[in-house]
């Protein structure tokens, strides 16, 4: 820094020449910029949780006998509705596809209290701002005879599990 005034102005005019000072300044600048970028990125990595402490997405809902034929039982803590039609069982989400409220069962299917979306018995949108149908989740029979729902796996609506 102290030597700066001694430098002749010719260097500034011919900006093309790469002096040692310019090279060092450029490397330092890139180093600072890179460090800032990396630390900003690592902050995002930090605040994105690796484990979550909420409910697991794959869980048991009990024996098939708990759901009598023809019943539609909502498990509000799990946010699903277990539908049993004869010997076929399916799990439909009760989280509104609009903005995440819990839909309530109504005579015609499901109705959302937050923004007035309506769904039919199979979860298809029949009214309101909901952009898509309620998803169906995979239901499987675990070796211990209990039903297992996996909310990470969405299946085609209308696919039931025969029990």
């Amino acid at each position, binding site marked *: 820094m102290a030597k700066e005034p001694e430098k002749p102005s010719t260097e500034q005019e011919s900006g093309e020449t790469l002096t040692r000072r310019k090279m060092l300044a450029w490397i330092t600048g890139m180093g600072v910029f890179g460090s800032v970028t990396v630390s900003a990125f690592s902050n*995002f990595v930090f*605040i*994105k*949780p690796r484990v*979550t*402490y*909420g409910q697991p*997405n794959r869980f048991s809902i009990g024996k098939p006998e708990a759901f009598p034929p023809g019943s539609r039982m909502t498990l*509000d*803590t799990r946010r699903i509705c277990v539908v049993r039609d004869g010997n076929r069982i399916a799990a439909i989400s009760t989280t509104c596809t*609009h*903005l*995440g*409220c*819990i839909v309530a069962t109504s005579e015609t299917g499901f*109705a*959302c*209290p*937050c*923004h*007035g979306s309506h769904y039919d018995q199979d979860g298809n949108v029949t009214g*309101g*701002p909901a*952009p898509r149908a309620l998803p169906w989740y995979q239901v499987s029979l675990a070796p211990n005879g209990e039903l297992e729902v996996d909310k990470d796996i969405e299946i085609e609506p209308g696919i039931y599990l025969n029990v």
Partner: protein
Amino acid sequence: MSNQTSARPWSFITDLPSNIWRSIFRNPLPDSDHGRSATSFTNFFLHMQPVKVHRHSLRLTYTWGLGLISLFLFLILAVTGVLLMFYYVPSTTQAYDRMLDLRGTVAFGIFLRNMHRWAAHGMVAVVFLHMCRVFLTGAYKKPREFNWVVGVGLFLLTMFSSFTGYLLPWDQLAFWAITVGTSIASYAPVFGKDVKFLLLGDSSVGQEALLRFYVLHVAVLPILVTLLVAIHFWRVRKDGGLSRPREEDEVFPMPEVEPAVMVAAASGAGATIAVAAPKPSLKAALQQKLYGIQGIVRGPFTKIGNVPDKTVFSWPNLVRAELLVFLITVAGVLIVSLYFNAPLEEPVNIMHPPNPAKAPWYFLGLQEMVSYSAFWGGVGIPTIEVIILLLAPYLDRKPGGVGKWFARERLLANSLFMTFVVVNIVLMMIGTFFRGPNWEFVSPW
């Protein structure tokens, strides 16, 4: 003086109170112009203000004190917020009980919570009104464009602070408002889902979300607001004080006696300094040294010396006005907090959303739009509105009509802005009063 001290050997004790006082407040109450300048210069809190302030800036009917009220509400929020932190625990099992404790056992607990809640509502409203004032008087125009941008940032931070605070009582209102609000964020293209996950720290609102909102509410956002407020105020000074009509800055003929030093700040980068002193005497040099730094500010002209103009000394004129606004603000918050209790609904019941589930009143316009389309109502239109607000000073470059309410030259800009305001208020009213269970149209009568 030295004779007197030797005459009274214990004078360092008898003079102790006045010595301490004078070490803190270096000036006696001023009785001259020099004293009034010195008072402004030597006091930490007063030196943020100019020594002299334009009469136009002191007009109540020009500013309505809205910016100051916003600041004072923020201070009230900071003080009551810190006090509430002594009793609050950001835990899903304890938060609601702590709310009940504030009601039942903590001394002044309910009162502090009321003050915090009503000041928060007030701040959202007053910051918005302040923005309306600035727009309708054309105060965002050159050289104040960037300060308008900072102001829009402060408005958004105010909303976000309020939104994060909304979850903390962990009651039904809180839980469902945040469930809906963060779902709106997830509709944003590309990053929407990630933003929601980062905000909540989980796939749905729970303990992680409560902790995150708490940290944002009590640490991150207040620091950002403080920083932006500092920049906002600094820019007000550096942009030549509050906006005013051009004719308010007419330069008066300079007096013959005692040549004044006049600093004409160029609107661009360099500032040209014209010294009207006949020859560089010691006095003129001193004047330049004393006033030079304060003189170089943006704005048409900054006058130094006793040039007749329309400015008055900040002490006591501006200080008195600020104190008055402060007293009115505090009194208003206290009175409202005495008569109205902050609402607290039932504790969170994840299984049963209230019907209808409504966001706080200032988000009900948003929620009304969301009931038509989640993307356009919750993300698309608000984003476009914010971008237009941010760009307003860069789109509207006509210099006319600054410093007057509803200036004729600004009829188009003001009409557009008023349309924006009225549409948003109407949507808010519909969401507040005309929406019942299942968000169906109901009549409030």
